[in-house]
């Protein structure tokens, strides 16, 4: 086998490993605590090819106001879905959309884009 072919295989293996580590490796993300605002807690989530912050901490019984600030126009972020809370909301491009949810039991709840490709989590503690 010619050296360039061996190099191509080696590069391919390296890229595959890099790819899996990059996408599936453990993502360190410190949860963002929602800021108390009156009776509810509020956090602004910037939507730009993903959600930042993507891990949000909330508390049982305290309504959580998520202000989605969508800064892109890609159809991938058109909607945000909270399956556990029965919320599917269209996010207007370059605008803010408020989603209010009321966590009623502790646990981790995910939210995602309409096609379940971009993800975020809400960690609800008692």
């Amino acid at each position, binding site marked *: *086998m*010619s050296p*360039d*072919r061996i190099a*191509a*295989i080696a*590069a*391919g293996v390296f*890229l*595959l490993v890099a*790819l*899996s580590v*990059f*996408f*599936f*490796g453990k*993502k360190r993300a410190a949860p963002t605590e929602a800021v108390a605002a*009156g009776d509810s807690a509020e956090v602004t989530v910037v939507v*730009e*090819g*993903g*959600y*930042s912050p*993507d891990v949000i901490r909330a508390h049982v019984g305290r309504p959580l106001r998520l*202000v989605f600030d969508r800064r*892109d*126009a*890609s*159809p*991938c972020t058109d909607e945000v*879905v*909270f*399956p556990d*809370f*029965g*919320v*599917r909301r*269209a996010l*207007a*491009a*370059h*605008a*803010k*959309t*408020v989603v209010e949810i009321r966590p009623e039991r502790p646990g981790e709840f995910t939210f995602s*884009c*309409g*096609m*379940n*490709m*971009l*993800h975020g989590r809400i960690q609800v503690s008692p």
Partner: protein
Amino acid sequence: MHCAACVNTIEGALAAVPGVEEASVNLGTAQAHVRGRGLDPERLVAAVRESGYGASPLDAATPGEQEAAARRQTREMLRRTVIAAALTVPVVVFSMADVMFRGRNLLLLVLTLPVYLWAGSPFLKGALQTLRHRTANMDTLIATGTTAALLLSIAATFFPRVAAAAPGAAASSGSRGMSPVYYEAVGVILTLILFGRYLETRARGRTSAAIRKLLELAPRRARLVSHDGAGEIEVPLADVRVGARLRVKPGDSVPVDGVVRSGRSAVDESMVTGESIPVAKEPGNRVLAGTLNGDGVFEMEATAVGGQTALSQIVRLVQQAQASKPPIQRLADRVAGVFVPVVLGIGIVTWVAWYVLGPEPRALLATVALASVLIIACPCALGLATPTAILAGTGRGARHGILFRNADALEGARKITLVLFDKTGTLTEGRPRLTDRVQLAGVAEERLLGTAAALELASAHPLARAIVDAARERGIAPPKVEAFASRTGLGVVGRIGGAPSVVGNARLLEEEGIDASAVREELVRFAAEGKTPLLVAADGRLLGVLAVADREKPSAAPAIARLRAQGLEVAMLTGDREDTARAVAGRLGIDEVFAGVLAADKESHVAALQNRGERVAMVGDGVNDAPALARADVGIAIGAGSDIAVEASDVTLVGESLDNVPAAIALSRATLATIRQNLWFAFLYNALGIPIAAGALYPLTGWTLSPMIASAAMAASSVSVVANSLRLARRRLP
């Protein structure tokens, strides 16, 4: 904020913000409306806070604004598509015609670059942004695929010799005349995908159109009747309070839920209940927001406004259902979650395999195959399969007065084998009426009905109202009764004009020693017809018999026939006696009857049917049937009127008509079938398309797939999924 002074302060503070042309604060709703140019909500909020009050932006974008934003986005997409196409056409012509001239490749690059950098910028930006989050989506695939094709072409344009000398590139000049450039591929891919997205966005907007149409039903303004009752003023809907008196003129939409206080009209409720015939309204009747008044004028008192109206509840319920996912979607979700990284991996393997094993020019063919794989893969088809079908299906239902609580309800309704109806109030009108009258010779109608009505007037029995109503309708004034007594299980007795009088069943007359043999045949006939006979006697002599029955709804028999045509068994549950129940069931075409069932035992009957292996849909009124509705595989609450959010039910039918029962089942079957077709299509498309694009067929047939064909397939795949879902929105319901 407590008073008009506060209003003034806040209005002043808002007006002082640069750019504000008009600011008005509503004390009642605690909302401020601000009009102007270049406004920043945060600045406005800050201004209010500085004036000593609290404020937050309303849902930043109202549905109207959101829609406008979506329309702008669609237009922008179309503009990009058109410009990209205009630049791409000459590139394709030069490439296909193999026109040779000095600097040809440079010209192609100049034409392609704006397509890539400007028209394709949403994909490039999107891809970079997702990478920052260590995730990947459609944009990643498109950006990587087109970038690979573009870099390959640029290398060949500026370093034709290097490209030609590169391993595997030697033979390329033979096939293409010059160095291998793929500019036309970059342009065509981006143009087609942009066009596909444009079509997809437009079609997706249509799948959710039902909700928008519901929201538009309520008028923006209402006619408030002035205090003297003569004049009227038009006010914005937000200012209408519970208890307000409103006037509704011919052709008006009813602004809020309420009760008619004066006037008469026929109201078209089809948009809310699905019932096509206008409903007559007179004082005391309920009217619903969003329904359309006919030719009459009436005044109504508001009983529910804003988010409390039936219409708002419908919208909320539908939105909630549209956010839920059926179990069938879970697999698709798992696949979608890892789809893009896996496709990128397949791309790498493809490139290496072509480079190592492929024929010359290896580097070129490997890169083209890589681009094809990335471009043809379409996670969108997978991601759109379920939500678009649910949007279209639940939306279609909502327009017809059929509300699914969630996607599980849709899936459950598809699997049922038996439909169990509660009789009273569901199959029947729930209000007994006088149906037959038998007078003995020499007895006037007035005497018979008058006597019966006089005695029943004091009775609390549900059958009593039927008699009293019948007398009133005929203008018969009941005489005065003395010494009234109720005989439980038998009837009532009293004295009218001194004469002892009785109304009740055959046993009561027997006990009173009155001969009823003259009507024996009629009594047998009434029992067989499911009617309840009331014998009337005065002064020891029988006057006649009145038969009372709860009439079946006109829609009952046709609905049951349709359910049977759908291959379902139909059963009925009632507290009535066996013979009465059988008579009703016979007329309606129901073969299985559970008679004499107490309200508390309905649930156990559902359970018994389930133990027999049936999947039961229980149809009831949602109030006293709640436990049975909850126990059933699918609980269908009917005639909810304004009490839409019946908790125990999976499906709520807004109108009284039973037509919607077979329609709901047909719709859920159709929706699930659509989801299934979409998912199969999306899985198969990717499972076949990706290997073919990677060149799996090459060793056998010598086939490879051009990235341009791949992009056309990709664009077509997600559009076909959405188009398939849209068929639901246009579907005719039985």
